[in-house]
């Protein structure tokens, strides 16, 4: 790991130019959204909004034009996503497809697969979910047991996925499954399959989260018949493909902005109160941290734009970001409860408690804090 790989980077003016248009689109759609829903950021979704984004050309920004994309770089997507997350726009429907599935299909898929999936993703009409975790495979992803066998007509899939965000809205899952060997073979013999979630033999059951929200699902595969072209990329290369997919998953600005809507609502409250140095300092330290994290996130995106896979760099920034995001609800709740004489909008309290309860997810999803720190330690030359 060389820290010189993450340096202050400029976003090109041609990418910055996207900001006014995406702001306008967001303002037209989130006027009536209650704070606690906006505070869920990318965990909340709205198909109408996703289609509007597609229509306005804000999805698949980095994909080639011939598939419906904008052929821009990752920094263009950074600008758009930064505005979406900062405002708490309902991006959940298309989120996984736009962030990672489309990129994996572009990178590893056949021409026919690209033509089949990418234009619909870019129009905001086709949604994806991630098929990695299983009941027996969390951080130890290489131990997946879901299995697909070759048949005359393609593949027969059996097994189970869990913690599958948005499976109940998604049209497809990119699933990491075993296609040869045994679980003891670890990262050998794994492949990625494009699973049509409408196929017979698939059961999707909700797993309500601690706020009562339906984000998670468990997905069962019971002799699911899939066509030959369900295979994505190379048979047996699932592990290296999923590693590339995780780099897309870990490196984005959503790893620093999950609590930004809440932070801003609280700052608006504080700005209406009499001046108080202690809370001014809290506003200042949170704002300063976010400002520096933001430049680190831009720096990671610039490495992606340069065609690199900044795995260690993304892990460093994701862990810093998650720690920051988790500190926000706790610190501002203490601040508000330190001023019991003030009247606080009940919606703000509702949002704070919603984020407080779901905040542990920030250092679980996309790789746990402990796994990331292991990656960082190795990257710095330990082990």
């Amino acid at each position, binding site marked *: *790991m060389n*820290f010189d790989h*993450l*340096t*202050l980077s400029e976003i090109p003016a041609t990418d910055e130019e996207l900001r006014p248009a995406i702001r306008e689109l967001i303002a037209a759609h989130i006027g009536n959204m209650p704070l606690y829903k906006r505070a869920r950021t990318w965990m909340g979704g709205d198909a109408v909004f996703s289609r509007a984004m597609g229509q306005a050309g804000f999805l698949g920004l980095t994909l080639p034009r011939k598939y419906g994309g904008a052929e821009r770089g990752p920094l263009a997507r950074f600008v758009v996503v*930064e*505005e979406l997350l*900062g*405002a708490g726009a309902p991006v959940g429907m298309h989120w996984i497809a736009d962030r990672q599935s489309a990129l994996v299909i572009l990178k590893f898929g056949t021409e026919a697969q690209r033509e089949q999936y990418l234009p619909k993703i870019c129009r905001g009409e086709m949604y994806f979910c991630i098929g990695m975790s299983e009941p027996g495979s969390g951080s130890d992803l290489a131990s997946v047991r879901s299995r697909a066998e070759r048949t005359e007509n393609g593949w027969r899939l059996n097994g189970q996925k869990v913690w599958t965000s948005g499976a109940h809205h998604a049209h497809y899952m990119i699933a990491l499954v075993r296609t040869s060997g045994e679980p003891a073979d670890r990262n050998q013999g794994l492949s990625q399959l494009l699973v049509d979630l409408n196929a017979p033999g698939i059961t999707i059951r909700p797993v309500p989260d601690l706020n009562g929200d339906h984000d998670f699902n468990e997905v069962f595969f019971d002799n699911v018949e899939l066509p030959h072209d369900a295979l994505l990329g190379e048979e047996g290369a699932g592990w290296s493909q999923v590693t590339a997919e995780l780099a897309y998953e870990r490196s984005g600005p959503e790893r620093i*902005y999950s609590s*930004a809507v809440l*932070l*801003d609502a609280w*700052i*608006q409250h*504080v*700005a209406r109160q009499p001046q108080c*140095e202690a*809370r*001014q*300092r*809290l*506003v*200042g*330290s949170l*704002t*300063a*941290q*976010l*400002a*520096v*994290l*933001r*430049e*680190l996130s831009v*720096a990671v995106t610039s490495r992606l734009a340069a065609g690199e896979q900044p795995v260690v760099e993304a892990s*460093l*920034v994701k*862990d*810093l970001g998650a720690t920051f995001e988790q500190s926000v609800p706790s610190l501002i709740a203490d601040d508000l409860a330190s001023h019991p004489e003030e009247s606080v909008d009940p919606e703000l309290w509702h949002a704070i408690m919603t984020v407080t309860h779901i905040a542990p997810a920030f250092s679980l999803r996309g790789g746990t804090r*402990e796994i*990331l*720190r*292991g990656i*960082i*330690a190795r990257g*710095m*030359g*330990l*082990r």
Partner: protein
Amino acid sequence: MDELLGPFEQMLASVAGRSVDSVVQWKAIEESGYLDALVPEAAGGAGLSLSDIEPLIRALGRFAITAPVAETMAKRALGVDTLGRPLSAILAVAEIAGLAEKILEMSLSYANDRVQFGKPIGKLQVIQQQLAVMGEQVLMARMASQIGCAHGLAPSLEVAAVSKQVASATVPQIASIAHAVHGAIGITEEFDLQRYTRRLHALRLAHGSEGYWANIVGKARLQSDRQSSVEFILSLRKS
């Protein structure tokens, strides 16, 4: 950039260390010509920007040079006897970033060398996780330094505040993990770690600690007509 940094590091290496006479040290620094790095070319200097020499200031940190090298560079460029607090704070941030790099490097190397329970302690997950946290904080300090130095010799109060607030706030955790990893040897007079952490603690407080600057960032944020944090942060880049 290596053409700039390489000879500077060589010069510093020859005059760094606790037994060096401060007069001899300053003479060598002065004769190197680097003190005119920020002076415009028309006035006989190298005409570099603060961003250009940010790696040099970090190098001063890595060698724990306490002489006012960066301050003198800035004073010569501006033709003044005293620097404003925002610029002084940013120069301290760049030194903090260099010290932080050095302390991380020492800690990683110690963790790979020191054997307990039959293996280097760097193989223990508890140590690895702590050093990962330290790496994260070093990265924060480095980015804070680049943000501060990007605005030249007349930085806005807000940019200096963001930079110094974040850099100073990394210090307690970096020093504490470095000493935890080094164990008892780290708190001896003889072992060099204390020279670096001592300087780190001093620079945390110099020209305003994290609390002082947090107040300034907070005031600016609360008085700003920018609705969102994203807008506020973008406005800092342009200031």
